[in-house]
């Protein structure tokens, strides 16, 4: 028995793999043909193989759970999502353009603030931003770049057009899952990798290394690069260890570092103190230095801000970069691109209503049942209201929240998020909504991952893809049709 792909119906949503006339799209043709040729039992065998592989790679997750950690193995779907290389090329250019403009914007905010003087963005938006750091004013990090690693969430809606949903400029995570997803898929569907049309993704860690090395304040052949983790109890610890290992960098905790009398950062090694040049920090701004920020933080390094301000160490991302990772600022990004680059934005924003503006607020409050309401500074899908899926009670609660702190809320129309075929149970393939998080690197050069991390809302009809909210993931294939 085989799966009947003709019965697959995405209910009017744009589907990544299948057209409205139930035919595979060009980049997914080989994939769908291959999957259609598999018996249901064979397909199930592959699914179980993926599960076993994840167990093997993710032993750590189960172990944590048993000791009270919230981490768990995340659900993985074996059917990849495909995007044509031609489509991706456009998205890639758009992502580079966006991060370049955002970095110019952040640098401007901490220097002359021309963007405010020229009336592009209202002053109070920045002044009231939780992530604007006065400590960063006047600092000039290398290349004028503040956000070196950016995870931008893309969705496809309507006829398959890409939209930017948000930019994560603080400590974006998930890239290790992107790499692991490919490793699993290669084991599960090896037949499909025989031709070269699926573009490889595994140069990410070496690009990350090069990007970080370029930030070194000392002009030496082998700069000391470290990954700073909050420690084993952080849910992304797996990723921190993975990236450190893949780059051959030291994985350090705050207590492994100290700032010397010369305002340089050192790590405590068996040979004595060793100077550190670049810190890829996976700790939020407010915890990196108890002297500068939260005095109770035990995760950070006293004096780290001082060392950074003097240019003795590079921090990626730079403190204060999060000011552009604000959903109110997000609404201004198209203007920001035009202002700094004198170019039209290649990637579109989702229409956004700012509750800060009385007129727009009025509209939002009248349409809570149709809109998605998001807090300006949360990540991980927390504190959101998805209007069409909400109760009257939820809506009343959000109306109060918005009125008491309008600056902190934005609203967007409910998007018709694209779907992709997902193996739900044995022999059952159904559409599920998904998004895409590519990772963009910028220092001396700019680099975009080939595709990114595809996250899937595993619950039927759900639009929330965050792993903390029951989302899963699948491999992302950028398929080069011209190479065939």
């Amino acid at each position, binding site marked *: 028995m085989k799966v009947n792909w003709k019965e697959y119906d995405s209910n009017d949503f744009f589907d990544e793999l299948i057209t409205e006339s139930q035919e595979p799209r060009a980049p997914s043709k080989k994939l769908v043909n291959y999957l259609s040729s598999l018996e249901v039992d064979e397909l199930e065998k592959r699914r179980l193989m993926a599960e076993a592989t994840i167990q*093997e790679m993710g032993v750590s997750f189960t172990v944590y759970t048993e000791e009270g950690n919230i981490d768990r193995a995340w659900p993985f779907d074996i059917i990849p999502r495909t995007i044509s290389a031609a489509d991706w090329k456009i998205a890639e250019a758009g992502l580079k353009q966006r991060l370049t403009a955002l970095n110019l914007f952040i640098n401007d905010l901490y220097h002359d603030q021309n963007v405010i003087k020229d009336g592009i963005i209202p002053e109070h938006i920045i002044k009231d931003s939780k992530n604007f750091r006065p400590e960063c004013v006047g600092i000039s990090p290398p290349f004028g770049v503040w956000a070196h690693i950016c995870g931008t969430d893309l969705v496809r809606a309507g006829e398959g057009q890409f939209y930017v949903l948000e930019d994560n400029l603080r400590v974006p995570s998930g890239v290790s899952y992107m790499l692991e997803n490919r490793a699993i898929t290669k084991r599960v569907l090896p037949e499909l990798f025989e031709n070269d049309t699926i573009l490889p993704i595994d140069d990410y860690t070496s690009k990350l290394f090069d990007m970080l090395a370029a930030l070194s304040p000392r002009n030496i052949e082998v700069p000391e690069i470290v990954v700073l983790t909050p420690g084993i109890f952080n849910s992304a610890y797996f990723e921190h*260890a993975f990236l450190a290992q893949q780059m051959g960098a*030291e994985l350090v905790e705050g*207590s*492994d570092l*100290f700032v010397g009398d010369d305002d340089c950062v050192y*790590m405590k090694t*068996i*040979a*004595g103190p060793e100077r550190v040049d670049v810190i890829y920090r996976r700790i939020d701004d407010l915890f990196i230095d108890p002297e500068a920020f939260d005095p109770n933080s035990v995760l950070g390094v006293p004096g780290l801000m001082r060392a950074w301000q003097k240019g003795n160490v590079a921090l990626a991302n730079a403190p204060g970069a999060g000011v552009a990772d604000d959903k109110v600022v997000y609404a201004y990004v198209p203007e920001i691109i035009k202002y700094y680059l004198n170019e039209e934005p290649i990637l579109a924003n989702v229409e956004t209503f700012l509750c800060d503006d009385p007129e727009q607020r009025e509209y939002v409050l009248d349409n809570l049942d149709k809109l998605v309401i998001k807090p300006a500074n949360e990540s991980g899908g927390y504190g959101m209201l998805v209007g069409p899926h909400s109760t009257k009670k939820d809506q009343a609660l959000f109306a109060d929240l918005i009125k008491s702190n309008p600056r902190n809320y934005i609203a967007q129309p409910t998007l018709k998020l694209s779907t992709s075929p997902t193996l739900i149970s044995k022999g059952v393939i159904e559409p599920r909504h998904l998004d895409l998080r590519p990772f963009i690197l910028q220092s001396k050069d700019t680099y975009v991952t080939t595709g990114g991390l595809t996250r899937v809302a595993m619950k039927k009809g759900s639009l929330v893809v965050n792993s903390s909210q029951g989302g899963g993931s699948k491999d992302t294939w950028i398929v080069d049709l011209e190479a065939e």
Partner: protein
Amino acid sequence: MLSRVAERIYWSARYIERVENIARLVSVYDNMLYDLPKGVDISWYNLVEINGSTELFHERYKVQDEKNVLKFMLEDATNSSSMLSSIKMVRENIRTTRDVVPEATWELINELDIYARQNIKKGINRSDRHTFLNRIIEGCQTINGLLAGTMSRDATWQFVLLGRNVERSDMTTRVLDAAVSLMLQHQEEERLALAQVLWSKVLKSQGAYLNYRRTVRTSISGAKVAKFLLNDPYFPRSVSFCFSEMLVAVNKLPHGESVLDSLKVLKEMDFEVTTSDDLDEEFRNYLNELQIGIIQLSSNITESWFSFDKEGEAA
């Protein structure tokens, strides 16, 4: 290499060695009790004495019987040196140093931990004890084999060697001490009968039986066994061999002067053993001195490489 990572690697190696040693000790003890001659009485409680944890034992148990001793040695979470506690310590240390050890180490220690926890009752009850302990020893050897076969001989490896050999030399002195004390507890006649059984078991507990046979090539006696386990330059569990391994390791690490000094003191300590009569209280004192020296060595290792004072200089 980060001091914190070095410290965790050192302790991982110590605890892996400890797990294997516990399994070996219990296994040999088990075996010996069946072979004891008439009139010789040896209690399981000696195992608790070997490990120097009599006080803790009495806090937890009233009766010094087989079941309680084995519970205490293998399962007891309040005993930081029990088998399960030691495996847990290996896991905790490896978990946070996964980036410097071979990738499969984490999976192997997890497997060992799961097996030990699920089957711990087999170790406590008699019928499956042998199988259980063998699996544990094999699990430790698999991990050590993985490390030996795939780790670069860089600083990380030197800390594996240090941890393993500190623990191992300590255990060898303890086993010898326990054997001598057993002998001294018995009168002339029983002592002779006991010696027949005891010394070959001591060798077996260290996996040294065949090596001894090939190297010493005479019958087994207390004096010769003691000499072999203390001084043989080729057998990897002899005290002397452990010290030599550590000398090589320390010389590959930066500023290990104080550790070298304490190793030299240890290497120079010597005790003349010619006949089994020499295995007396004085010999026990000598072993005690050795153990104190090993404790000093371990604390010098900590001070040289793991502790950092506020000014940021290695202490």
